[in-house]
Each structure stands twice: as C-alpha cells, then as structure tokens.
C-alpha cells in the first residue's frame, strides 16, 4: 500500500517559487533544509481514487518551538480544533502528520475522536507526548478520515523519514489535493551573524481565501 519515498516525490511537478528579493539564497530541501528536521510522504490508501501519495509526516529531532495560524471559519475541522488545543497546552512540538483525501471537517465528535486516536498512535511510535504531535487534514468536507488505512501506514511512514530533499519533496506531494503542482521552498540567510535556514511546504488550489489567526 505504501509507495517508496523516492517515487512519491516525482508524482507531480514542482511549482515555480517566486521569492521576493532579499539577503538570502534559495537552497534545496523544503521542510528538511533546516537542521533537525526530517520528512516523508507516501501512499497510504486514503485518497478516493488513484495512488498519488496521501500521507505526510514532518518530524523534529528535538522539542521545536511551535506556532500555528488557523482558519477563522467557525465550522472549523477537527484537526484545527485539536491543534489549537495542543498549542495551548505546549509551547513545543515534535511532529506534524498530514493526510489528504478527507478533510475531517463537519464530522462531529466522531471526527474529533479520530484525530485523537491518530495523534496517540503516532506519538507512541515516535515515543513522544500526544500534544507534541500536530495534525493537518485536507480533502472532501463531511468525510471522516480512513483511519484504519492511516494507522496501518504509520510504521512505514515513520521508517521512511529522511532529512534529504527527497523526503521534503515526497511530503510536499502527499499533502496535495486538486493541486497541479507541489509547493516547497527553502532559503539560507544570516541571523545575528549565524547561518540559519527557513523552509516550508504548502498545498492549495481551490477553496482559497485564507483568514487565519
């Protein structure tokens, strides 16, 4: 059920990234460019059709200082409610699990329970506290996540974690839905005379008018 990380990163092409000018240089690597971060993306059988990777994980070797911005839509999805609570409880986090296919939104208490179960299962595998695991979901609203397929894919996802560019690229593909391209970028610059790196990945193509706070 799970495709290899290297296959995953080639599923769709990468978007051109238009960076503003500034005292930085673009480097490969997306979310894994910064020290201490690993990532993976693979097909876990969550998507309604096709075998494009649909499950991604970003993990940090140490307790990372965490921050989040979330939709102000009052019909907030279960993972949004879960993450806001987790960030209230803890200033640090160690992992972000992302599934594509079902949004787990408008799924009521059962949907929230699904998030808890997935966070607990991953925390156990990674030997960390559940509130250090954050979760993002995207896909069809009103559908609960295919939890069994997700839980069964976690061991392979964890063992696929890699600090390589491929790890970042495969994660960037796995979070896409109707996107035609994956979105990933990293830069290197100096802060206070020390080289630092900032990287990221994103998805989005429809239902796009963010008002996050």
């Amino acid at each position: 059920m799970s495709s290899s990380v290297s296959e995953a990163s080639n599923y769709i092409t990468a978007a051109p990234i238009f960076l503003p000018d500034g005292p930085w240089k673009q480097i490969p690597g997306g979310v894994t460019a910064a020290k201490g971060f690993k990532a993976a993306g693979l097909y876990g059988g969550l998507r309604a059709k096709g075998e494009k990777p649909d499950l991604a994980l970003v993990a940090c070797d140490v307790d990372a200082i965490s921050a989040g911005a979330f939709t102000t839509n009052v019909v907030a999805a279960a993972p949004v409610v879960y993450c806001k609570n987790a960030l209230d409880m803890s200033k640090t986090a160690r992992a972000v699990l992302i599934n594509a296919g079902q949004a787990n939104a408008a799924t009521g208490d059962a949907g929230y329970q699904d998030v808890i179960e997935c966070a607990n299962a991953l925390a156990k595998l990674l030997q960390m506290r559940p509130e250090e695991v954050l979760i993002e979901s995207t896909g069809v609203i009103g559908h609960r996540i295919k939890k069994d397929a997700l839980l069964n894919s976690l061991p392979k996802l964890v063992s696929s974690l890699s600090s390589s560019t491929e790890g970042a690229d495969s994660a960037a593909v796995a979070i896409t839905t109707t996107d035609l391209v994956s979105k990933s970028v990293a830069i290197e610059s100096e802060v206070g005379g020390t080289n630092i790196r900032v990287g990221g990945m994103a998805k989005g193509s429809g239902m796009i008018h963010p008002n996050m706070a």
Partner: protein
Amino acid sequence: TMLGVVTTDALVASDVWRKMVQIAVNRSFNQITVDGDTSTNDTVIALASGLSGSTRISSLISHEAIQLQACLDAVMQGLAKSIAWDGEGATCLIEVSVNGAENEADAAKVARSVASSSLAKAAVYGRDPNWGRIACAAGYAGIPFQPNKLRISLGEILLMEGGQPLPFDRAAASNYLKKAGETHGTVGIHISIGDGAGRGQAWGCDLSYDYVKINAEYTT
C-alpha cells in the same frame, strides 16, 4: 483548503515565534485568494528547532528578529504565491500591489479586494484591460480614499491617473494579458490610492471556465 508547514533552525523564544508567524501569515497566506471561499481546514504550523546555534531571539524588535522575520515572510510569500499561481483553472498569477494608503493593513485590504473580484479575474481571463472593474473593486474594499487620487496601471501601461481614465493602447494591454496567460506568468496590477506610506500586496489568479468544471465535479 490551504495547508502549510514551515521549519527553521533559528533559536527563538516561544512568544516571539508565535507573533512572528502571525505577522508573516498576514503578509502572505492571508493575502491570497482563488475563489473567496475560506476553508474549514486552513492551517499553517511553524516549528523552530534552534539547532543552527544562532543567537536566541527573545525580542520582536531585535536586529536578529527583524532578519528572521524577513526570511519567514519570504518563504511564506513564495509558498502563498505558488498557491495562487496554481489556482483551480488558472492560466496566470495576478499580483496586485497597492501603495499610498494610510498604513500596511489598509493597503493589504484594497489589494485583496481587487485580487478577489470575480469580475476583475474574469476580465483578466478574457484578456480585457478592464480598469473600471479594478477601480470598482478598490472602491468597495471598505478603505476610504480620494477617488481623484486613484492611479491604476496594468504592467507598465497606465490606465488611470488622478482618478481620470487615460487613453491607452488597448491592443498592447490585451497582449500583455494574453502573454501572461500563454506562459502561465504573472499579471501585475499596480494601484495608488493617495499619498500615504502604506503599501501592500495580494495574489490571485484569473477566473476560467475550468474553475466551474473542476468544482462541479468535486463533490462532498
């Protein structure tokens, strides 16, 4: 839905990091639009490992914080623009730049109003340099400004100055739009609404038949 995950190895205090991330989100993801629908799932998570060995940033106004904020803004803007570039059915990215506002927030609001206008988006798809629709969308943004200060250009082509429509080369303006659509490039809409120091940007895409087709099929 848009999702984002941002990572850095800079060393930064929790309260400062949370403020920096929100500032960067306001300058990037909160300034894009494809269809005006705010999702139930929009989320950006940002993690700082501190493993670079950089100086610990504990104040938002320190020199190091300003350097890190600029990097964070750049990465988030790069990702945000790629989302608008890849908008469903889009043939080009639309970048709206506004200056002359009282402050950054006002400029950002006018920019996003124009980038969100279905009529302006459809005009870009029809390769129609429709300055009237741009002026209209700036006017209903909810930010007061003197209409006779309004200046609009499409790329390098000036369409309106001092609130007065100007004669312009319609074929050249239409070709500018056509070229952007053929290369999946960027259409630049530049607007000035006064003499203030506030400036801001927003990003969107043109509105094509494919948007309707894609979303008529993608059902809950």
